[in-house]
């Protein structure tokens, strides 16, 4: 909604102006309104004074006094971190115990069941193996068929016809791989960013 030039500035509008956002309608109003003009001048002055207040400095040796009371973290392995987190609170301890009991219970139940039904287990195992082998064959066949049907397959195969060509192609691929690895290492290096209060 458009503001009227007759309206006095609201608190939010004063904030906008203090942040450097001074629309023309507000400026027109302030220029013709002694109340808003004086209010704005006063607010600006207060903000300037506050911003110019110096930072106070604690007594010398503050950093050492803090560090004397701080326990520096000892780096832990992933397993130790997991154990630490699992034992940190009563809730996490209860969750961890519940998870442990359910895992051990399931294991025990499956062992007991397997001991009681060896023939069913063997039959299930054979069926599962057959299924995996069939699935693997279908995947390999599908991939090979797709590859052979590609328009560039003939040219690519011709490249590997002689040992010399094969060596050149392999060398080229290895070089491209090495260059890619170097580029990735540069990309994942820690960036240097700007820091709040770094010049204090």
């Amino acid at each position, binding site marked *: 909604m458009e503001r009227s030039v007759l309206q006095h500035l609201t608190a939010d509008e004063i904030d906008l102006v203090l942040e450097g956002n001074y629309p023309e309608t507000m400026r027109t109003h302030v220029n013709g309104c002694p109340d808003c003009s004086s209010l704005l001048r006063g607010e600006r002055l207060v*903000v300037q004074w506050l*911003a110019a207040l110096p*930072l106070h400095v604690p007594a010398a040796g503050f950093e050492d006094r803090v*560090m004397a009371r701080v326990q520096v973290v000892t780096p832990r392995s992933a397993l130790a971190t997991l154990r630490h987190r699992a034992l940190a609170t009563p809730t996490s301890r209860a969750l961890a115990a519940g998870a442990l009991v359910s895992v051990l219970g399931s294991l025990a139940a499956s062992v007991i069941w397997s001991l009681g039904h060896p023939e069913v287990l063997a039959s299930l195992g054979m069926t599962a193996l057959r299924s995996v082998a069939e699935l693997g064959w279908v995947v390999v066949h599908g991939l090979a068929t797709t590859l052979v049907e590609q328009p560039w397959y003939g040219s690519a195969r011709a490249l590997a016809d002689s040992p010399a060509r094969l060596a050149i192609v392999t060398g080229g691929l290895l070089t491209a791989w090495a260059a890619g690895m170097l580029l990735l290492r540069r990309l994942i290096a820690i960036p*240097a960013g700007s820091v709040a209060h770094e010049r204090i």
Partner: protein
Amino acid sequence: MAEPAVALNTLTDQEIVLLARGGQERAYRELVRRYERPIFSLLYRMVRDRELAEDLSQDTFVKALNAIESYKPEYKFSSWLFKIANNAAIDHLRRRELDTLSLEGSPHAVTPDAMEATALQIGDRGENALDIVEAKELGGEIERAIAQLRPEYRACILLRHVDGRAYEEIAEMLDLPLGTVKTYIHRARNELRRLLAHLKEP
């Protein structure tokens, strides 16, 4: 194993926190160096007692650094630290209701030396002697006016206009609704304008 020589002042707070979590003491020290002045200044202006502000600042850093593993990197480290500091100040003010003006020294100081040691010191800005006196007088007037604000107004106005924090950040730090923070800051500015009306433009 020797720590790799990374220039800590080129790293962000989040990166330093990661190093601290990796057990690097110098990363802890860097965090203290970065924030000792802003945190001490906020607490000093909140409680208006140098020794007390120093104790509360130490407690703030000790509490934060000993809990560094529970810090969530999605939040700004400085917001987390200021939140701890502000809570420490507010807790103290609620307990003690220390609202007397103490530019001349802590109300608990009993000897002249103790009063001198605990007096609010207004820093100079590198000008000549006359400027320093004027700056100290002006700074003293402003500090005195801030000291007269209600503690919750004081925290908001200091975070907004001395530390330059955004309204949303202050609301998060102080656990207050955004509208309340805006209201407190507007009221604090009105109050300061009234208290400082006798000062001339610098």
